[in-house]
């Protein structure tokens, strides 16, 4: 269940580093930077950014609908039935 946090928070890029996705998308613990260092070009950050775009690109190009469970296709069909009229 997604809930509204009970406190105000500024963007916290350390969150980007946390969790299992960080291992795949980010790789290195280099983005827990302060505000000053954010403004500087950072080759490591660029590399990390490319990794996220790569993840999406890999999915877009490599997606194989035949590997999906029937429910996915059934729901896609429902989406067309529900949107067309």
């Amino acid at each position, binding site marked *: 269940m997604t809930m509204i946090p009970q406190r105000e928070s500024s963007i916290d890029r350390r969150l980007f580093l946390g969790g299992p*996705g960080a291992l795949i998308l980010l790789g290195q613990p280099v983005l827990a930077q302060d505000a000053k260092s954010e403004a500087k070009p950072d080759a490591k950050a660029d590399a990390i950014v490319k990794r*996220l775009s790569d993840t999406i690109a890999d*999915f877009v190009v490599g997606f194989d609908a035949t590997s999906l*469970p029937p429910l*996915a296709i059934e729901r896609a069909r429902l989406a067309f039935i529900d949107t067309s*009229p």
Partner: protein
Amino acid sequence: MLAGSREEGSEIVCEMVRQEGAGPKVSVVGQSFRTSPQLAALANGVAAHIMDYDMSSLLGQPTSPIIPALLPLAESTGATPAEVTAAFIVGFEVCLKFARSAPEQSLAGGWHAVSSIGTMGAAMACARILRVPREHIANVLGIAASLSGGLSANFGTMTKPLHSGTSARNAILAATLGRGGFTASATALENPVSGYFRAFDRGIKVSFDPFAELGRRYDIVERGFKPKRYPCGGLGHTAIDATLELRNEIKVDDITTIKTSITKYAASRIGDKYPTSIESAKFSMPYVAAYTALYGAPMLKAFTEESIADERIKTLARKVSVAIDPEFADILDESPSRVTVTLADGHTVQRMRYYASGTPQAPLTKEQVEEKFFLCAERAVDNTAATKIFSFLNQFEGEPSLAELWTLLKRG
């Protein structure tokens, strides 16, 4: 889209599209003219969203522009229904990953996910159909990121569905330019100073973890979506469901108050004022609650000038109040409601609904899906065409070609 093509806002957009005089390359759903893929996507997107009857998922309707963008591209490229189905799932999954990465974007950020997120997912769906080379997809993402937007301040006006139209158009623009080698920043998404996530999720927690699930876990399976039962703001649907359940226990003339308790997110989108237009009626709790209590489920005829002028609805709507329910105030991924009706003798009756009709937890029946289809389709095409379209779509991914569909979807 067919029903929406008859709405005033769609007519205005289509008149503009006609005046543009673009080459007649592809069909526009519910219209008799042809135009360019981008302009067709613009008109399709507005028509898809203008009645607020299109499917919901996380953060509202972020997937709204995908099909409006895919149809013109499918026609211009000759893509098969199976290829279009795959592209739709690609777009859906990308949308949901963006939505899950920053679930507060709509509430705290003030952005309309149809545009801020829908553009990104629709662009990836278009990239799939256009077979954009892998090395150019980062450019498509970067272009789409710069073309995203959409302010939730425009809810209740024609500009809300315009967001779906511009997102569909911009998705084709981004995918086409990206395929052609048009460049964008490699840091357009994550740039910590000026990237997509910084701009749209300023001050909001963001996690990229959902993107790691791409191709591994499918939101279309695990979360699904909600085909709407009612053609109005989805965050108020549980209140409608609860009111419908209460109708069997009360006499309308005995009602002294109707208290609707909802989430903070719903309260940020659903108003407590009586509507002044069809668009605003879709986001007015007093209106939809009073209509439902009086006449039952608010279907298409509920959202007409005639119904808004109904004195019985106006009178009962004055007895409707809206409050935040402390039990579920902060929930974001569902929109529960509690409706409490107080009667003249002091007796109260109450219903709470957590999941709205149409959600995977309370799915529409086949009969309800079919009823909705024909109710909408027959506003634009005759029954024979509607029946053929319904039959085609029910075996969509197995059809060899979409050619038949373009003729059927023309204005009847």
